[in-house]
């Protein structure tokens, strides 16, 4: 049975420094601590006073993404959200408040916002969605899993459209962040919010989402991935490598697949668990977008990898 195609109608990649538009995006040279409140007021028209930085990241991204489709989304549009770190800043401040030498009293705003699903709540509220709303917290592959759930529901027709996002916030001190994600000192700590709007209507689509697939990362795991990519039989395929993919792994894929182009995105968003959402959205949103087949590949620190393939269509 041929599976129903899934189309991408909008894509937003909001990175550090509160830069939502691809044209102004610059390579990061150091960690950024961004105040999103002005952008929140600009995009949402009001402050998210009882929210958090993480909530702001998600709500701005969702609102910008739906803004691109130029009409209100159907109310039964489902929302799928992935996050690796969740409300890490609020969680830390809550622990500081409650545990010694703190006072023992949790501030209500912080307690509420320590729940990772509050980002998807505010994202849904910002764009008026009140249907299925799921938050997946599965480390480096959270966004890919949220996307997988969305595609599965769309293909079955249980939801007419899906808003799918991934977001994470950075936190300071930098050393704690690097330790938490097991990163090297020369990596830029990132944050961001990437969103896609998907449905089954080809009309006006900017891209087609081909598949989300899962691979074990045992011996020779890249052979299977290489065969999968080669099977598309296209001359120019672009590999969009996730942050856990090593230089050696990328090199091995390039060797196996001559003509494979590499599209780096981490220099623009830094390293964070759901950077994949930023990277995939960036392939679709820049002014000088190149049509063709894009393959995002990332793995976790344990034994799994996930591949997301999409076809970027001519503008």
């Amino acid at each position: 049975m041929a599976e129903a195609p899934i189309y991408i109608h909008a894509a937003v990649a909001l990175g550090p420094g509160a830069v939502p538009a691809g044209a102004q995006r610059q390579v990061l040279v150091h960690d950024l601590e961004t105040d999103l409140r002005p952008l929140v007021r600009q995009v949402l028209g009001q402050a998210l006073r009882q929210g958090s930085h993480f909530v702001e990241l998600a709500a701005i991204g969702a609102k910008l993404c739906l803004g691109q489709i130029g009409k209100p989304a159907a109310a039964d549009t489902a929302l799928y959200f992935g996050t690796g770190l969740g409300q890490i800043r609020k969680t830390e401040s809550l622990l500081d408040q409650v545990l010694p030498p703190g006072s023992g009293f949790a501030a209500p705003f912080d307690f509420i916002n320590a729940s990772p699903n509050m980002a998807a709540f505010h994202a849904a509220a910002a764009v008026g969605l009140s249907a299925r709303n799921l938050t997946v917290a599965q480390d480096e592959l959270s966004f890919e899993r949220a996307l997988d759930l969305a595609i599965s529901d769309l293909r079955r027709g249980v939801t007419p459209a899906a808003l799918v996002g991934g977001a994470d916030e950075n936190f300071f001190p930098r050393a704690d962040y690097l330790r938490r994600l097991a990163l090297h000192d020369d990596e830029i700590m990132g944050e961001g919010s990437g969103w896609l709007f998907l449905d089954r209507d080809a009309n006006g689509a900017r891209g087609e989402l081909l598949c989300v697939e899962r691979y074990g990362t045992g011996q020779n795991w890249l052979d299977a991935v290489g065969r999968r990519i080669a099977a598309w039989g296209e001359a120019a395929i672009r590999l969009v490598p996730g942050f856990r993919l090593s230089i050696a792994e990328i090199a091995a894929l390039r060797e196996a697949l001559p003509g494979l182009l590499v599209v780096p995105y981490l220099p623009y968003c830094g390293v964070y668990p759901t950077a994949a959402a930023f990277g995939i959205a960036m392939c679709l949103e820049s002014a000088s977008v190149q049509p063709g087949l894009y393959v995002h590949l990332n793995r976790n620190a344990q034994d799994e990898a996930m591949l997301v393939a999409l076809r970027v269509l001519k503008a």
Partner: protein
Amino acid sequence: MASVAIRGYGIVSAYGEGVAALRAGLAAGAPVLAPLPALAPPADRQALVSAVNHARFPLHPDGTGAMARLAIEEALAMAGIGAEELRDCALVVGGSAMLAHAEQASRELYRTEPGRRPRLEQPGTLTHELAKHFDLRGPTLTLSTACASSANAILVARDLVARRRAARALVVGIERLCATTLSGFSSLMLLDPNGCRPFDVNRRGLHFGEGVGALLIEKEHAGEPRLARLAGGASLCDVHHPTRADPDGSGMARCIHQALHDAVVPAEAIVAVKAHGTGSSDSDAAEAAAMRSVFATMPPFTALKGYFGHTLAACGATETIAFLAPIKEGSIPPTAGFETVDPEIGLSPLRQPLPVQAGNYLLNYFGFGGNCASLVIAHG
């Protein structure tokens, strides 16, 4: 949507290890409720909680992992699933106990090196360890939708099985006690110092419980034994307010309607309801309003949080099990903690055990962040 069979379940709750301990506790009707001084936030009043045996299951990833393994093993034994069949099994986890683990690690570090923060584990860590331990090779997923986490996990597992992404799926709901969460609920004035009294006129909020529940779900095959059938369900987000349901219960009612529609079961065919029943003033009133708007004649309903507490992210699993286990023995447990009807609600939950009849049951779960989930489970 296709229905799936619930073939087994297992639990570690405040009543002890296993379904038998839970069933005995529910039958005796006494809540498990005690202070836990080690967890009292330093500046706050004592709060009563429903705790598991911490000597056996310390507040540590290893202790939580042990609870989850026990619950899964019990579910697998009940379902008669062997190691070979586990390869084609998905794992969907609701909750992670990350906050409780982080808190405990912070406490320990504070004793030796005050000022340093522990390295927090990632929310998917336990999920990954469980998949590895049981050699589950199907899709794995950790959902974090507050108190609807593991109810949503049941629905996602249903989808994975019905869509043949895996032959079977394990659902695990996880919650551990922590002072941070206790203090948070205290600040929100949502803790009842006397223990949870769902729908009671004097209700003041929840009491916090911990536990792990596991359910094994498979596609239904005619003639094969099953404990119950998940006929359908729905989940949605009520964007009325981050922490409060719409007072008219409209978001909850919409979720219940969608679940009934998904299960192709008319409202009048619901034999009884397991309410979410947190015991908080607003939430119970909204839930009662939702039930009234769905049901022309109110079916009998019960709430379980008075027994072993609000197990938050785990309650979708623990309460589904705590509803199914006594049903298998022929009765639905009454509402622990309830004494007096609230005139503003005007509904009385079950005060005596209700003999079970074959038919469809509705189970409701609601959480912060507007997350609502309803399940329709067919018995007999």
